[in-house]
């Protein structure tokens, strides 16, 4: 079910860092298109520029050159307020280290994007419950992250990324901190979400075998460049 308009379209995107005299090409002239509803896995060794590329798609970082389009919107033409709105409404993010706020309960953590998006209070608790249900944690709603296992924390982070009903889910090594069984269950959750909600997912990962099982397509990076861009199966 490919859409006429791709979810993500990168055109000759570079992100350079200046370190004194030398230039570090974290992302070097990458062009890639992700159709709507695709689950793309981004592979590559450490330091190859995967996170930098993901942050460019998320609007957390701006490219040194090239353009990043998401659902037809050019991120480089947006003001910082518009980029913030894009992050609230169009993308959801999941990190390797979960990044839940430790003193907030699951409910409060998942509610945070709703607060930022100024969603009505009356609507919030149903949406939080719905999101936690989707990841199977509705019974732990009043717990704090420290009372949960790693896998459960990552599920909470996924619920938080989904609560604003974004079109794109960006995950940076979501299984990096988890044992392989738990990692597998997280990936099958992502796959389920992709299929049930028709969501576009870009996931950075180390684990080629898992990526081959769950993703639609694998892209491999090396030294800031896109090495391969083929289909997974």
């Amino acid at each position, binding site marked *: 079910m490919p859409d006429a308009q791709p979810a993500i379209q990168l055109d000759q995107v570079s992100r350079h860092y200046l370190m004194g005299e030398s230039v570090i090409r974290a992302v070097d002239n990458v062009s890639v298109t992700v159709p709507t509803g695709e689950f793309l896995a981004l592979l590559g060794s450490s330091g190859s520029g995967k996170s*930098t590329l993901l*942050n460019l798609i*998320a609007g*957390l*970082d701006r490219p040194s050159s090239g353009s990043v389009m998401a659902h037809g919107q050019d991120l480089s033409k947006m003001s*910082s*307020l518009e980029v*913030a*709105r*894009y*992050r*609230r*409404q169009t993308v959801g*993010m999941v*990190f*390797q*280290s979960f*990044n839940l*706020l430790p*003193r*907030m309960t699951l409910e409060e953590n998942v509610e*945070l*994007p709703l*607060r*930022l*998006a*100024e969603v009505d209070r009356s609507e919030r608790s149903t949406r939080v419950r719905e999101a936690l249900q989707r990841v199977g944690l509705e019974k732990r709603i009043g717990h704090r992250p420290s009372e949960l296992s790693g896998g459960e924390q990552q599920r909470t982070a996924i619920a*938080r990324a989904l609560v*604003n009903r974004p079109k794109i889910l960006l995950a940076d090594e979501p299984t990096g901190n988890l044992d392989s069984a738990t990692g597998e269950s997280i990936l099958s959750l992502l796959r389920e979400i992709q299929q049930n909600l028709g969501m576009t997912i870009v996931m950075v990962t180390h684990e080629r075998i898992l990526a081959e099982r769950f993703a639609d397509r694998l892209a491999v990076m090396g030294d800031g460049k896109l090495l391969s861009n083929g289909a997974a199966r």
Partner: protein
Amino acid sequence: MKFRDLSDLAFRNLREAVLRNSLTTLGVAVGVASLVAMLSLGVGLQQLATSRLAKSGLFDSVFVTPKTNLRRPGGGPPASRTPDAKARPLDADARAEIARLPNVIEVYPQIRFFTEVRYDGKPYATMVAGMPESSKASGAFDGMQGSFFSSPNADEAILQTEFAKELNPQTASLIGKDLVLRYAERQSIPSQPGETAQNSGGFSVVPKERHFRIIGVVETEPASGFGGFGSGRLLIPLPIAETLRAAQVNDLRDILRDSSSDKPTYSSLTVRVKSPSLVEATEAKLKELGFGAFSLLDVSKGLRTFFRVLDLLLAIFSSLALAVATLGIVNTLVMAVLERRREIGVLKALGAADRDVKQLFFVEAGVMGLFGGIVGTVFGWLIGRALTFGTNVYLHRQNLSSVDISSVPLWLVLFGIGFAILVSLAACLYPASRAARLDPVQALRYE
């Protein structure tokens, strides 16, 4: 973010570092307390001074004299007087005219004379003073035994306490008793043909008596204008004193001059106006009418300037404490930004705009300012009360009546709290913009 969510998150963050944030808030409170205490002293002392002075009648009075005869003892026939056409005698007509001027409450002469009083069959020599109706509000009668004159024409007398003790050491028992005032009345003798104005034999002095009921005993005679106040021992209503038309000690010049007329002339009149601010205009108007006029306005202006400067100095000194508190806020918030790097990064990744992050820090600082301001204002008020209490204990030991040297009017409360909030927000400018500028990619980099 909506304000309610902002303040929700702000309160949460404040609670998470409750010790550090309460100490910071306490620092603000100490600064505000010193500011409020100092200013409350400034305000209180000023109120004390101005209310005493206003009540004294010195600052809402104009002292009027005739313009001419000061350098001409004995005066002279009108034709030979000064060529100044505007100069005119200060007589009953003039008094009525002055009384009709706008904002004038009362116009009265200083009437005081030395005379003999009989009480309980014994004679006493004393100074009698006429009290204008407006002196009731002077404050001198506030703590008196008995009461003020029931009417301006009542045959009633108020005794100064020293004099009352001479009559009877139990001064309270004097109230309701009668005394007899013996005085000399001036009666003019109809002019005889051929007599010149220089002749001072145009009147005769006739001894008279009048009964008064003692209705009160008072500490001192109030200052009912300029000159010689405080010397009266027996106070009677001014209109009565005027009808007695006694040979006043300071009225000799009038007696010497113009004796052919039945109308009294005055060496001086005191004009009470509605408020000190109206003194200047009234003074000018009186000069226009051809009288000499004088007031203590310049003195009161100087006094006001003095209190302005005092307030300013007090505010500057206490602002030092607030400046230190401000540095405390800056420090706390900078620490918070460092500690909450990751949290700020998460908020931004979830879609918080720079503005949201900035506002969050401003609300946190504002809340600390608000609480610091409230607590500080209460502290400041308490310090003022304590100083007043201490002063009054001292005054009490000296047998002096108590005063209120500190005052916290509503504007000072609002100023204290508002200033605390403002200072906190100013202290937040740098930390908040630092937080807002934080790069989320760096903040979220996995360590």
